[in-house]
């Protein structure tokens, strides 16, 4: 039986974007220098009884951090609407419902709270991306009013298809359509898919279906970060 593979069709790159990242060898580390012993700065030589003693090496008790089961906040909380106004959010939610509905036991955009996540993402994005979303959602809504006399949030599937299909494009990574509205429709589609398929609900659905959990990759922590960044 060939596996249908929702899971593998995710947009997010699970491993590093740089190919062939061989990672089994342990690189050589710089030699550690021994810590200097602390010394007294008193004017008169101290008596043996009062002389400060060398700092004892901390004893290792073989301490192992206890495992603390935890979860991500999305499991117990909702994201506050922060950037888009109510009409924009309603348009975005409808767009998500149309572009990625629930299918075959997997959550759709709404169930995965993708519109709320995108609202947050766009709120912290550069101005150009914010503008693309705002003007795109405005235009989508405006076209729905013009063609069907209702906001986009209330169109049916057929009406949505009439509004969206002319703007769907094929494109390659880093080269989305350049025409502004086509760019919005196609980039928003990509963003909705990513936000949905990278959600924990999607991961749970994949595991339940016996599929490999999606989007797992090697996450690199900050490596010896510059201390000045925290001053």
């Amino acid at each position, binding site marked *: 039986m060939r596996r249908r593979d929702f899971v593998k069709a995710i947009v*997010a790159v699970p491993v590093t974007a740089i190919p062939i990242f061989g990672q089994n060898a342990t690189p050589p580390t710089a030699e550690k220098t021994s810590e200097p012993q602390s010394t007294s700065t008193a004017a008169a030589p101290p008596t043996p009884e009062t002389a400060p003693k060398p700092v004892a090496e901390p004893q290792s008790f073989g301490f192992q951090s206890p495992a603390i089961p935890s979860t991500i906040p999305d499991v117990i909380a909702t994201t506050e609407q922060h950037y888009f106004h109510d009409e924009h959010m309603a348009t975005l939610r409808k767009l998500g419902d*149309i572009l990625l509905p629930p299918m075959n036991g997997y959550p759709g955009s709404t169930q995965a709270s993708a519109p709320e996540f995108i609202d947050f993402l766009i709120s912290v994005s550069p101005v150009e991306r914010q503008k693309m979303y705002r003007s795109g959602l405005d235009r989508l809504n405006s076209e729905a009013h013009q063609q069907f006399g209702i906001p986009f949030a209330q169109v049916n599937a057929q009406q949505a298809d009439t509004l969206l299909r002319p703007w769907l494009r094929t*494109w390659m990574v880093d080269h989305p359509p350049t025409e502004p509205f086509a760019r919005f429709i196609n980039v928003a589609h990509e963003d909705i*898919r990513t936000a949905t398929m990278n959600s924990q609900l999607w991961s749970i659905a994949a595991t339940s279906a016996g599929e490999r959990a999606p989007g797992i990759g*090697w996450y690199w*922590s900050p490596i*010896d970060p510059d201390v000045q960044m925290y001053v």
Partner: protein
Amino acid sequence: MPEENVDVLIVGSGHSGGMVAKILTEKGISCVMLNAGPIVDYQKDRELKPAHELPYRGFKMPGRLPHVFQANEFNANTWVDEKEVPYTFNQDQPYNWVRVRLFGGRSLFWARQSFRLSNYEFKAKDHDGFGTNWPIDLSDLAPYYSRVEGIFRVSGHPDGLPQYPDGNFVVDDSPWSGSMQRFIAAGKKMNVPVCKPRSAMGRDGLASSINLLLPDAFATGKLTAVPNVVVREITVDKNTGLANGANFVDRHSRREMSVKAKVVVLAAGCLESTRLLLNSKLANSSGVLGHYLIDNIYGPGVVCSVPEARDGKATADLMGGGALIPRFRNINTKAPNFIRGYALNVWSSDRPMDSRNFAAYGVELQKKLDSYYGSGFSMSMMGEVLSRYENHVSIDKNVVDAWEIPVLHVDAKYSDNEFNMSRDAVDTGVAMAEAAGFEVLSKNYEPNPPGYSIHELGTSRMGDDPKTSVLNKWNQSHDIKNLYVVDASSFVSGGWQNPTMTILSLSMRASEHLAEQMRQGNV
């Protein structure tokens, strides 16, 4: 007490610096290696995580690393932060300067493609009249290529093509999949060669300076490595005019320090080495330091589907494997609207298709993804960028990095030659795919911004004439005989090829020359 005078100071720990360290220490010469960033611990610094546990669900953090298209939320912490070490450019001429300052540099992460330059690159001016010839040719570098290919264990197949020189390979005699055979047949009718790719296998999962070069250097006991120090400038003896060390700053504490050395070797990466020379105001009697910035054209490509592999019919016999179409334009024929040439990377994939290849959504899109699963066949371009004086870097005196070192201003753009070449690459790919009976799903003619390839080359170019070059044919500064620059800044032209094998070979050759110069007392 610090050493009075280091024998050889190496700035940088990537492929070129690692090779210098290996060669010199094995010849008994003591070296100190400075690196701007920390040492990576693969066990401590990374862990497997699902995207939903990351703060941005796998989206790159908005506004972070805007010019590193290769960055994502998983790997963002491995790249140089653009806010910490900025660079400037004209807004209508974006440049993607992609850097890694971890110990080992970009050698930790490179894509392993391993090619020799041919005399169509070394002596390009003789072939088409444009630009400048290298002061060396393939026969000068061939012995070093062979040794480097042996160290890096390059897999490949000898093809006997002068534009795709054969090397010291772990021979790849793997059979072609059915889809590749069809593509090869289509290429034959169009006089387009389709060859096996060439790739460095390395050892133990890495093909980096830290596992293939530096261990040999450390084993001699003659290499001292210092991470987390940012070199501010190379210093010069006012009386002799010779390089005599470097001033640097501790990355964390900002403590200013200096080291004295008899010889200085820059291996900080093409643009960082040039930046250092510009900030130090050295080695530029020619006036060309910073000029002739080159890279490779990346971005244009084609994505197809093999119809016979759809709807569950993909098999290992039909799908799978990769190929390389080496430059075939402007070898024996003349393209109408561009000079030089390009290569195409080719892949036949039994994996899922990217959803962006279908103008569809919802249930319809999912049906297409199911149907087309395992039928993907794609091509992407690697093209030569012409070496032009006006593509250059200079110091932006108005901007400094986190250690108050003046940054680079990059002034580079592609010309009609690059755009016309890109169009030809995509059209050729489409024509071959259609001749092979594949369905073309999407294509892109537009190059990625200059720099995207992470193959920045030139700006301290080598040459026989000190009036028109920064280095001689041994990567030695014309102006300062105890100063060598061994990274890709020495390139005169770029070709279509990934430059790593050439960087390593030039560095090996330069190091042996330096060692002999030191033995003779000339340096």
